[in-house]
């Protein structure tokens, strides 16, 4: 990072990215439930209605499939919409629009049309919001060719990835976390600061074991790494930032250094982005591995409401620590 920076919260960093791009390009608008007059369900869009007016900051009724489809149609003929879902959970009722229209338009029109659009929302667990409001949706979407999926963990990445997403000519799904909205961090003020897709970053350097993570779980992994340092294990934490495209080169280079890896993320263990990361590492760096790769995931149940059971199901620093010890053959 170079040039002047500003200390902001994660939600403000997202907003900075959107506001700067809306100032830069009048084809960009935002639509969603409560994004305008209410100032955003999580205050991410606070002040944007006053700044840009109701033409470009549009309150929609509860019609996810409707306003998703409308925005895809608008993008096909030249606008560049940002679609906010109150949470990614509710994108499930718009899944057909994202899967069948956003992702496939370029191909089924033989390249005549494309859909420059950003879908964004908080993702994965919040706090005791129950099974229907706790889904990690990146796993569903990263499966689909034609879509790009990013999940920032820091304020600077939140801003930089948002700007890249808005400037991209294909559909981008941008995953936030309710638990990160108050996180503080420095972000560059340069309006040309962007973060490229497909480039992981190193959140912590270490030589013994690599933890691969993204979004909120980067912070949990860093916490685990501090604990492990006390026990003499030097852990590297990779923040993927971008899930599709995935930074294969960084994974291979890193595992070639540590020879051991744990993938820590929210989402169920059956398939998903974590399984994809494991597949890439074993396929591309098989000879470098000194232990099987472990995954630390949400347990394989719908999310329970009870606070203790919820903490049991969500991947914790303790479970990450145990997994790191196992791959380092340090288990008690």
């Amino acid at each position, binding site marked *: 990072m170079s040039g002047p920076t500003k200390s902001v919260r994660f939600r403000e960093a997202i907003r900075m990215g959107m506001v700067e791009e809306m100032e830069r390009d009048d084809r960009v608008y935002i639509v969603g439930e409560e994004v305008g007059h209410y100032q955003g369900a999580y205050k991410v869009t606070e002040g944007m209605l006053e700044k840009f007016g109701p033409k470009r900051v549009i309150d929609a009724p509860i019609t996810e499939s409707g306003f998703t489809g409308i925005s*895809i149609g*608008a993008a096909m003929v*030249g606008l560049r919409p940002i679609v906010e879902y109150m949470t990614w959970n509710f994108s499930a009722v718009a899944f057909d*629009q994202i899967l*069948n229209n956003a992702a496939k338009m370029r*191909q089924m*029109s033989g390249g005549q*049309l494309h859909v420059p659009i950003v879908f964004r929302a908080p993702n994965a667990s919040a706090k005791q919001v129950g099974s229907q409001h706790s889904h990690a949706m990146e796993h569903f979407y990263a499966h689909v060719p034609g879509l790009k999926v990013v999940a920032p963990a820091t304020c600077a990445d939140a801003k930089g990835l948002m700007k890249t997403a808005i400037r991209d000519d294909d559909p981008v799904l941008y995953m936030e976390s309710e638990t990160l909205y108050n996180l503080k961090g420095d972000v560059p003020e340069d309006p040309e600061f962007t973060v490229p897709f497909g480039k992981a970053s190193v959140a912590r350097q270490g030589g013994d074991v690599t933890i691969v993570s993204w979004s909120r779980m980067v912070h949990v992994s860093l916490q685990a790494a501090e604990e492990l340092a006390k026990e003499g294990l030097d852990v590297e934490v990779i923040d993927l930032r971008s899930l599709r495209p995935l930074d294969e080169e960084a994974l291979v280079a890193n595992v070639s250094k540590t020879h051991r890896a744990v993938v820590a993320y929210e989402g169920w263990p059956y398939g998903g982005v974590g399984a994809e990361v494991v597949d890439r590492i074993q396929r591309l760096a098989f000879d470098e591995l000194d232990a099987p790769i472990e995954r630390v995931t949400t347990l394989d149940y719908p999310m329970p409401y009870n606070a203790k059971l919820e903490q049991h199901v969500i991947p914790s620093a303790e479970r990450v620590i145990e997994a790191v010890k196992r791959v380092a053959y340090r288990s008690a």
Partner: protein
Amino acid sequence: MTDHERHLGLYRQMQLIRRFEEEAARAYAQGKIGGFLHLYIGQEAIAVGAVAALSASDYVLTTYRDHGLALARGMSPRTAMSELFGKATGCSQGLGGSMHFFDVEHNMLGGYGIVGGHLPIAAGTAFASKYRGDGRVSVVFFGEGAASIGDCHEAMALSALWKLPVIFVCENNQYAMGTPLTRTLANDDVTARAAGYGMASDRFVCENVHQVMEHFDLAIKRARELSEPTLMEIRTYRHRGHSMSDPGKYRTAEEVEEHKRRDPLVVSRTALEKAGLGDKLTELDASVETEVQDAIKFADDSPEPGPELLAATTYKGAFAR
């Protein structure tokens, strides 16, 4: 242009669609076309009449029964037939097939395979027109089988709320695949729901192409001048089955024959014959025949798309893997 000349032009478009599809059905039977093939035969007057009333810059979108609208809009039969044959010279370079005709040059923004899923898309192209103030109207066609699905409701609710310049056209051909209207809609007046959305509506039985044009003139004026949507329901009839695999056993031969007697294409032909234009019709039919045969030959001779096309039509630039 005289009224007769204009009518001859409309007749030719309907006849082109009819003969194009009859030959497509033959090519399907010969194995030259794969997958699904949904024919528009019997409904041509609707696409032709609507397009005649629209401006070239207006957007049109429809279902998987899309050949008629594409041809009416100006897609060349060569390009259309090549798409059916899966050839690189097709409108979607052979990647879309029968259900996914797209022709951006003629503002034909697609044939869609998910029932009702394209209604919000059309509301979106209308949204963009309003956002830019470009004065374009969007028209979206769907069947009565789509009238009950959620996206139909959301698209209409939002279009009325946001006053979008869009026309929702329910081509009620009375069968949702094999299920008759009586078993799909409790209220068979699809336009009855327009009142619930606070939207204007129009409902009529398609008798001839001129009548379709006149009805569209009003809805287009409402969209263009007032930026207000319209829900239109047009009773029509498809002569063939739902798709090529459907023998249509759910309806009687008498019913089909009765509708064929009222075929708007025949209505046009009869009127033009009565006006003493029989020779002109013979000439037009011959030119349509030549054009369709040329399309078949062109599609037959065209190359197939290669695998290099796949990545380039999935993402712009570097492939996101």
